[in-house]
């Protein structure tokens, strides 16, 4: 593959994933992130396991990096209110992001008997 095409693909991938091209994702403290997740009420709309529901989207195991999360929280769409850095700092959001990375992914429905029964209907 030609280098130019590789570069184009890389840029497309970066834009699609919301990954800043020339910055490194800062480290987050997952333990502190868990405290903030509960203290600042993230769970209220997104669930204790980040699973989402009628009031908020799933935020567990999504392909968003810390910068992407910060950007979204500062200027969200839909029903979510904007959280400014006065309410939660970039570092704290990075910690929340680190906590979100620790949340388990869902098993496929086919591996859960009750759901598999529904799926095969």
């Amino acid at each position: 593959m030609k280098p130019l095409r590789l570069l184009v693909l890389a840029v497309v991938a970066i834009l699609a994933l919301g990954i800043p091209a020339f910055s490194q994702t800062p480290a987050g403290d997952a333990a502190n992130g868990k405290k903030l997740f509960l203290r600042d009420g993230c769970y209220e709309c997104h669930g204790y396991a980040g699973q989402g529901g009628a009031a908020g989207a799933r935020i567990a195991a999504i392909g968003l990096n810390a910068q992407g999360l910060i950007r979204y929280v500062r200027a969200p769409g839909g029903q979510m209110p904007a959280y400014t850095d006065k309410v939660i700092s970039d570092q704290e959001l990075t910690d929340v992001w680190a906590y979100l990375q620790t949340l388990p992914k869902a098993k496929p429905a086919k591996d859960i008997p009750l759901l598999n029964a529904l799926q095969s209907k």
Partner: protein
Amino acid sequence: MARSKKISVDRRGFLKGAAAGAAAGAAALVVKPEAAQAQEAIKAQEAAEVHRPATPLPGAKQTAAETTPPPHIDVWTTDRPGSDFMVDVIKTLGFEYVAANPGSAFRGIHESLINYGGNKMPELLTCCHEESSIGMAHGYFKIEGKPMMVMAHGTVGLQHASMAIYNAYADRVPVYLLLGNILDGAWRRSDVEWAHSVQDAASMVRDYTKWDDSPVSLGGFAESAVRAYKIAMTPPMEPIVIVADAVLQEEPIPDAERGRLQIPKLTLASPPAGEYGAVKEAAKMLVNADNPVIMAGRVARTPEGIQLLIELAETLQAAVIDRRFRMNFPTAHPLYGASTVGAADVLLALEVPDLWSMTHTQTPVNRMGMESRRITKSGGQVITIFAGDLYGKSNYQDFGRYDEVDLAIAADAQATLPILIEECRKLITPERKAVLQQRGAKLAEQSKRNRQRDVEQAAWAWDASPVSTARMAAELWNQIKTEDWSLVSDLTFVSNWPGRLWDFDKPYHFIGGHGAYGVGYGAPAAVGAALANRKHGRLSVNIQCDGDLNYAPGVLWTAAHHRIPMLNIMHNNRAYHQELMYVEDMAARARRGVERASIGTTITDPNIDYALMAKAYGMFSEGPIENPNDLGPAIKRAIEVVKRGEPAMIDVVTQPR
């Protein structure tokens, strides 16, 4: 006259005499104790007198006045109080039940119902709160399709009942409310009765009832009672109020009236169908549309309504979006939820209140609703068939924002569907039919994909504690799917998981929601609906929100007392969660203290033990359950109890939504 009138002494004198007699009896117990007890009593009295002034003994004159039998005794009895006739009237209306928290203003009818009426048709249901009485009537109607009667004080009882009446009004549910009142001040026997009387009893709820009357004769009562039933049951259906004056209830039926009193025949009005020309126009728009979408609000009034909606959707091969106010459409149907408002070039809204909020989205710039954007397709058309266009009130704002539509048919949707279906069929040529079939096949694929997506989403947080609402719904479904079940609660607060995972297809599978979102509706509505299900042997399932139950939990006792079988699953998220999110929203907007949103919105410290609460009211219970693996076996045990004809509760500590 049949009244037994031995000696004429006024009633107040008799009551005074009775009170004096009781006082004298009590005094006798003090002056003639057993010896030992007397000694102890004297010692105790002496000790007490050190600290307080002595009460003077009654003088000879007072003692004589209070112990000598009065020369005349006024005894008022009758073999035929007016309330007996009122019960005759009530019986002609075919009520199965009357729900009431006892109240002196309707004590006459109460007595006549249980003795003269034999406590059958209607049977009296003992309620612990008037809000429960109305909520039970609300839920009962959703299953039975007939109103339940409710009795309440015209003052304090109605004040308790008022929120629930507003819910029923907004949900277009007829509740037949009989208020007691003592209109004539001369008949009130105490300060309590003055405080419990009112000039115009129904005025407090007139903004959210369809009709009321305060008849001043028994003949007038009969006419108004029958008229009220007819009005309540004519779409748009609403609660009504009849005030039963206590004097009419308690005084004997005058001899002169006995032969003349009549109960008018009840003839219900047929619901209004849409004007033929307008319906033809609607059919033309729908048949020619590329992607018509049907939105169902409170469409199915009867089981036939579901079949008609299926028929229309299949005739047009149009997707159905269900607002879930009623059991309108089978959730496993290939056209269920298979398209969106934004994709529709013709949207047919059937009995949809506040359609504007369905055709618009609010932008995040101004969250109070001032800035919005229409989401219907550019050039798309909207047709409404809505009984609400025939009747409305202004003060309470449940009618929602004015929406621009292209064709508005003021009619009952279910009554209009047969003509609309027929007109659509006339217009569908064989060529058009082939196009519609192709569209239907695509919609069926979309519906299937929706279902698969929902099942995959249910897997998230499957093993989490607190228990996810998806897991709770799936565990329930696993236990009830082979039963003749009925969900007697709403889906709003559990992310609609039962609606996404269960197969709803029978008329009694779902009862819809509050109407006006007045919290406190859930528990009593579930009990009322379960009562209606009882005679059919159905398994009633109530997913019960914790905040809702705490308004009037005494309804659990009513369920236990009247042996109403129902499975209650607590959705115990330990918060008034919608409000928690709102306060969080406000704090984020104000850029301060988001961590304090739980103040005033959560129900913790201490956590409420709902299993213990249910036990206190005489109900089988288990919990709190926090491990999702414990839930399935607990549900199974509770269902065994319910199958024995009793209510049961499982307290499940749950995720917020």
